[in-house]
């Protein structure tokens, strides 16, 4: 009879905890959970539940990764009330930080890491006459402890695409629709940690991008905007029209660069998820566990996070979802049926 030892030259180990790292195909017995385990590599992506937010909100600023994230301010109910709360995430739970964002904004931009972030622009809540938007050009830097005012964005606006780091951020598009204001823009600006500079390469089409741009200052992808499944790609110099997604929706996104990313969700409660490999969009067989829109995306194509969302029926949602992309090492529990 073929045995595991006969094939591998050693018996199944009995371990108190799962080994890390493990080799693909490795089998062991976890004597704490009384289960046989298998090290595998995913062929498709999956969404698992992440830690719940302390302050539900959407249209926030974001920085960081799946296991080290920073969520800044945002919209937290209908009508347009906002929060200046800042929360950090360690991969398991969200912690409300004692230091709030300097202003109560939503639809702001954010980039960087959990301990070195930058946030800019945004809309101020509706304590103003109907039809009047009060928008910001403020830029603030976060050092893990406190916020410091930095060089102002070239104009007051909201809903701009955001990508990059605290010292090399990219901002594209955005809008200011107050009466007499210039509206939606094609402008692209870079940030060097101190000030913003307009770059010659402007968007192909003037759009807003809310939590739907990802990448770096020199390689970014901006999806949806004002047209549901449109895509614009940036190479550090020029913007070009990219490959449209398969599903028409206003998706949120996260990713590594213009060559790798994940698009997910959309209003009113879309669950579908697509993976971009630099050439084409592939529909993931399974989508979000709960349809959500205006979520913030963190991380990379292999390990992402969706947080801060609304759905068509629930204005704000505390729940988050963690993405494990295709080709990622995972531990599976062996069951019989």
């Amino acid at each position, binding site marked *: 009879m073929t045995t595991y030892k006969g094939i591998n030259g050693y018996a199944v180990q009995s371990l108190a905890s799962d080994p890390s790292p493990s080799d693909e195909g490795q089998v062991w017995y976890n004597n704490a959970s009384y289960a046989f385990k298998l090290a595998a590599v995913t062929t498709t992506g999956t969404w698992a539940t992440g830690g719940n937010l302390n302050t539900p909100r959407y249209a926030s600023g974001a920085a960081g990764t799946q296991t080290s994230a920073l969520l800044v301010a945002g919209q937290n109910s209908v009508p347009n009330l906002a929060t200046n709360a800042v929360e950090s995430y360690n991969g398991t739970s969200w912690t409300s930080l004692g230091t709030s964002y300097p202003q109560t904004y939503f639809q702001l931009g954010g980039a960087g890491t959990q301990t070195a972030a930058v946030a800019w622009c945004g809309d101020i809540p509706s304590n103003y006459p109907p039809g009047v938007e009060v928008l910001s050009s403020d830029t603030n830097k976060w050092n893990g402890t406190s916020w410091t005012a930095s060089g102002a964005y070239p104009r007051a606006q909201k*809903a701009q695409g955001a990508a990059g780091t605290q010292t090399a951020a990219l901002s594209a598009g955005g809008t200011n629709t107050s009466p007499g204001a210039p509206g939606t823009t094609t402008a692209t600006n870079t940030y060097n940690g101190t000030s913003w500079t307009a770059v010659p390469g402007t968007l192909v089409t003037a759009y807003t991008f809310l939590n739907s741009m990802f990448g770096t200052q020199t390689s970014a992808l901006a999806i949806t905007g004002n047209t549901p499944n449109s895509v614009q790609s940036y190479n550090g110099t020029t913007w070009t029209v990219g490959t449209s997604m398969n599903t028409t929706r*206003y998706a949120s996104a996260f990713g590594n660069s213009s060559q790798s990313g994940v698009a997910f969700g959309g209003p009113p409660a879309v669950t579908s998820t697509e993976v971009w490999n630099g050439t084409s969009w592939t529909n993931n067989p*399974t989508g979000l566990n709960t349809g959500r*829109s205006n979520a913030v995306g963190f991380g990379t194509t292999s390990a992402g996070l969706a947080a801060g969302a609304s759905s068509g029926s629930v204005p704000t949602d505390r729940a988050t979802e963690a993405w494990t992309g295709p080709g990622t090492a995972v531990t599976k529990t062996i069951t019989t049926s």
Partner: protein
Amino acid sequence: MAYKYCVAENWGVGFITNDDASKFQISGFPGNLWQIPADNRDANLWVSKVAGVWKTKEEAQAIVDAIVAQAQADWDALPDSEKNREPFGRQRPTAIVLE
């Protein structure tokens, strides 16, 4: 496909694992309502894990309807100027019809 419904509070990490998500489709709805495939062993085990309370389809629909109705009323109370400030694509909440 036939579905079953349960109510369970999402506690965060571990509520739905990647392993769960790879074995069967879980769909979340307002009111901590979860839809799973009927006659699926893994799905039934998941409901036990999360201490889900089974609901009939009619009960589940009533839970969702109540939340959607409140969300629609909240939206309708907004002045048009405020509706226009909502992020692109966000509109009046729509009814959800469970399968």
